[in-house]
């Protein structure tokens, strides 16, 4: 097991966001943190990324005491729901950022950086857009830039916070498959936060279902579907699994049945 999370706890003011969360995941795994809003999934992700601090608990990743590393030394590529692209930089500069801010001894040459940027642009299928600014791209394109930027630092771990939350359904579906494809290609351990059970079940190797700061169940999508550990899990994976009845149809159907 490469990622081992042990009884992580965190409070905001007095409200407990995480109540001792523990789980483990193998190297190169695609893990989805699934839960309703306020379940603590984003807090857990931000703790893994070093953007939030746990009050108790430990995280081991590839035998490193992960939480003792400051955020900037973790090399955890973080992708935000609202993209968080540097708005005053071109796409190419955005992607190059993580390489350019390295200390002189670790920084690749300018030509090497340019080559990496081109490579990443083609990986995220945005060739030729390097000179544009983020505000000139669509939401889906921006999120792909954000992923390219995170991949540029050759991250040890990829952390995605509802990356497709701000996109429309069609783009979501496309990017979903594409993300899985990139994960399979790079083999980076990936933690993915979502409240969309369909997204989680379709994408992930492992799904952890969180509720009110605790993990209700963790397992493969098939396991969870076959044997939900609690009523909450059964309810949560079921509630938006079936296609919701169209409200308009729901209103008109009884009448037509009567007639």
């Amino acid at each position, binding site marked *: 097991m490469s990622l081992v999370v042990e009884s992580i706890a965190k409070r905001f003011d007095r409200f407990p966001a995480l109540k001792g969360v523990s789980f483990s995941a193998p190297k190169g795994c695609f893990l989805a943190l699934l839960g309703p809003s306020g379940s603590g999934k984003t807090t857990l992700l931000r703790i893994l*990324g*070093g*953007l939030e601090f746990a009050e108790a608990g430990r995280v081991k990743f590839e035998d490193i005491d992960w939480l003792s590393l400051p*955020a*900037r*030394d*973790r*090399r*955890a*590529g*973080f992708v*935000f729901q*609202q993209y*968080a*692209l*540097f*708005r*005053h*930089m071109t796409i190419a500069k955005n992607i190059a*950022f*993580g390489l350019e*801010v*390295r200390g002189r001894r670790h920084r690749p040459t300018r030509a090497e950086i340019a080559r990496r940027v081109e490579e990443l642009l083609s990986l995220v299928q945005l060739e030729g857009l390097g000179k544009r*600014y*983020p*505000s*000139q791209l669509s939401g889906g394109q921006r999120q792909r830039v*954000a992923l390219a*930027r*995170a991949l*540029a*630092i050759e991250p040890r771990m990829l*952390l995605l916070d509802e990356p497709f939350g701000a996109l429309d359904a069609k783009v979501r579906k496309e990017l979903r498959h594409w993300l899985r494809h990139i994960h399979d290609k790079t083999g980076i351990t990936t933690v993915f936060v979502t409240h969309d059970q369909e997204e989680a079940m379709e994408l992930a190797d492992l799904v952890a279902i969180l509720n009110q700061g605790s993990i209700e169940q963790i397992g493969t999508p098939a396991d969870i579907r076959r044997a939900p550990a609690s009523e909450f899990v059964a309810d949560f994976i079921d509630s938006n699994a079936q296609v919701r009845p169209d409200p308009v149809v729901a209103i008109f159907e009884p009448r037509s049945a009567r007639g």
Partner: protein
Amino acid sequence: MSTNLTDRGSTRPRGATDDHPLARTILIALGACFIVLFLVLPLVTVFAQALKNGVAAAMDSIVEPDALSAIKLTVIAAGIAVPLNVAFGLSASWAISKFDFRGKSFLITLIDLPFSVSPVVSGLVYVLIFGMQGWFGPYLREHDIKIIFALPGIVLATMFVTFPFVARELIPLMTDQGRDEEEAATSLGASGWKTFRRVTLPNVKWALLYGVLLCNARAMGEFGAVSVVSGHIRGQTNTMPLHIEVLYNDYQFVAAFAVASLLALLALVTLAVKSFLEWHYADEIAAIHKH
């Protein structure tokens, strides 16, 4: 009836938010009158009075030693006060907009204080602290340090009065931009300083520039607070606004207005530079604001 309507309909139908044409004309005329009377006319008067006896007379009163010394002092005072206020304003807005801490709203109120305190009072405060009879008066006299009636006092008073300009420009913008980009920079391995220099600062550079321009215009034009701490020593501690007052009180109107027109010119240049930058970099500014 309907024919009547179509007859009158030769003029374009009025939109829902349009006013009656007459009301519109009156309002525009009122607005124009106000602008001419209270903004344009005074400005024109300053220049007209200055040039009443010709350009040469005006120039003479500007290059005269006392006037030159006042101009020099004003530039030095602003040259010290503005960069310091940029540093303080930038750090204060950075702390307020990117971090959560106790006493944050108190700090915001404190930054606004110079706007609500009369400049004369802010000048008097420094006299009470650093003046001969003030708290540190005896100590300063013993060590032969002059603050009141000297450059340090003038710089302190100017800084106090112009403190909010930079911070007030930056805080709303930086708060609006949030912390996401800084967090992204950190996760990509940037140090705190690199994050600030490469992400935070470029995102606010236009607001910062605007704040600096305003701060500078006010620093050079400040009268009240500086008047209290300066001591009005001609050729030594008189800044431009103080020099203008002295000349005016001596009935040297042409000279007074000649120096005054320099200050007015500064204001116009400030506005022109700001408008030019906004026009020239419109695309870039728009890209920073919308996201």
